[in-house]
Each structure stands twice: as C-alpha cells, then as structure tokens.
C-alpha cells in the first residue's frame, strides 16, 4: 500500500460518508454542511489527480458560491426553525434499491472493460497545466466555442434567476 493509495482511500471514504450523510440527514442545514465536506473531499481528489486548477475552482465555485446558495435557500424556505415531518418519501426503499442496482450495473460495466487497471503515467516534466488549459479554452481549433456558449448559458441563468425570484411589490 503506497502512501498515495492510503491517501486516496481516506479521501474516498471521507467523501462517500459525507455524501451519505447529505442524503440521510434529517436537518437540512446539516445536509447542506455535509455537502460542503463532500465537495471539499472531491476537491482533494482533484488535487490528487494533478488537476490543481480544478481543485481550486471547485472550492471557489462550489463551496464558496453554490453551497452558500443552498444554505440561504434552506433558510429562506422554512416555516419554522425546525424541520417538520419525515424527510424521506414513503417509497424511499425503491430509491435505495434502484441506487444499488445502478451502482452494481456501473461496476459490472467497468469491470468488463479492458483498460481498467491502467496506472497513471508520470506527468511530463515542465508541463504547465494552467497555460495548456488556458490555451485549450480560447484557441479557435480547441474549445473556444463551448466556452463562449457556456458564458451565454451563465448570462441566461443569471437573468432567469433574477426574474423568477424577483419580488414584485
């Protein structure tokens, strides 16, 4: 067991336990805070994959904006300080069965794929991930068009969210 494997197992267990607490917490604010720890675990996983930019953007965008948005939304949509009633559907067992089936199906699919136990090649020396990523995002024969479309999507979402949530007095 190399050190890297031990770290990965710790991170994976932490993230999966946090994810499980997200979907089973009775108190919604606790669920949102468990989501924060799950997102942080995912950021550490990105750092393990040498995707440093993704790790930092994950913390900035997901934890710094989306998780806070969730906490605000939970606080603004409750009639009371406590959560009322059961937090699970009457048919939650069907959801659990389906989730287990999906997981089993995915694992089966993965195991029947050949390149599964591939280990990571070393990163080429002096490889500047950030500048390569920047080039890929704005270069015309790379991904500038999806990048621009994503920015249009964000503007549309911004306008839509403001319009939908606007409190007309």
């Amino acid at each position, binding site marked *: 067991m190399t050190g890297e494997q031990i770290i990965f197992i710790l991170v994976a267990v932490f993230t999966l336990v946090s*994810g499980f607490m997200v979907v089973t917490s009775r108190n919604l604010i606790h669920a949102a805070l468990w989501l924060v720890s799950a997102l942080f675990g995912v950021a550490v996983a990105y750092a*393990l994959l040498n995707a440093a930019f993704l790790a930092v953007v994950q913390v900035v965008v997901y934890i710094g904006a989306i998780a806070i948005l969730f906490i605000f939304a939970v606080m603004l949509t409750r009639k009371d300080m406590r959560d009322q009633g059961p937090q699970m559907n009457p048919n939650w067992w069907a959801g659990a069965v389906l989730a287990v089936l999906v997981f089993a199906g995915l694992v089966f699919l993965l195991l029947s794929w050949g390149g599964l136990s591939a280990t*990571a090649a070393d990163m080429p020396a002096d490889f500047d991930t950030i500048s390569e990523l920047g080039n890929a995002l704005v270069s015309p024969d790379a991904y500038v068009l999806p990048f621009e479309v994503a920015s249009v999507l964000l503007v549309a979402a911004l306008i839509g969210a403001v319009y939908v949530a606007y409190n007309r007095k």
Partner: protein
Amino acid sequence: MVPLSWYLIFAAALFSIGLFGVLARRNAVAILLGVELMLNSVNINLAAFWRYGDVTRMTGQVFAIIVFAVAAAEVAVGLALVISVYRRRNTVVADEINMMKW
C-alpha cells in the same frame, strides 16, 4: 500508484448516493443536493480520464470546467424556482406541489 478503477468506482458510488438522494427525499432543496453530488461524481470521472489518458489533451479538464458552469447555472435557476414556489404555495415538499397532476 492508484489504479484508474478505484477512481471510477469511487465516482460510481458517489453517483448512486446522489441518485438515492434525488429519488428518496421529500424536500425540493434536498433533491437538488442529490443532483449536485451526481454532477460532482461525473466531474471526477472526467478528471480521472484526463489524467490517466493522454495528459497533453486537455479535453477532460475543459469538459469538467464546462460542467462546473452548467452546474452553477442549474443550481441558481433551480433554487430561484424553489424560492418562487415557496412564496406562492408556502411549501417546498415535492409531494405537495401537485397542482398540475392529473
């Protein structure tokens, strides 16, 4: 030396946990929490395939960044809708928002 399979199985497990959250929860905001977990698991998959494939092709990371943007947009609009529904119907329990059901 972490094999690729570990990352993929980790992402599959996170995806199923998110799926369970979407299917089994009553509160609309809690359903969106499950959706966030699923999007994150997809991103881990993409980043792992970038790393374990050809590192000089940035497709995996670019895809992951676009997914960040889409997830942020979806959460913003989704929560705006939930807040708007709460203002009209004073509830966010998904079962009770059933005026358009047959």
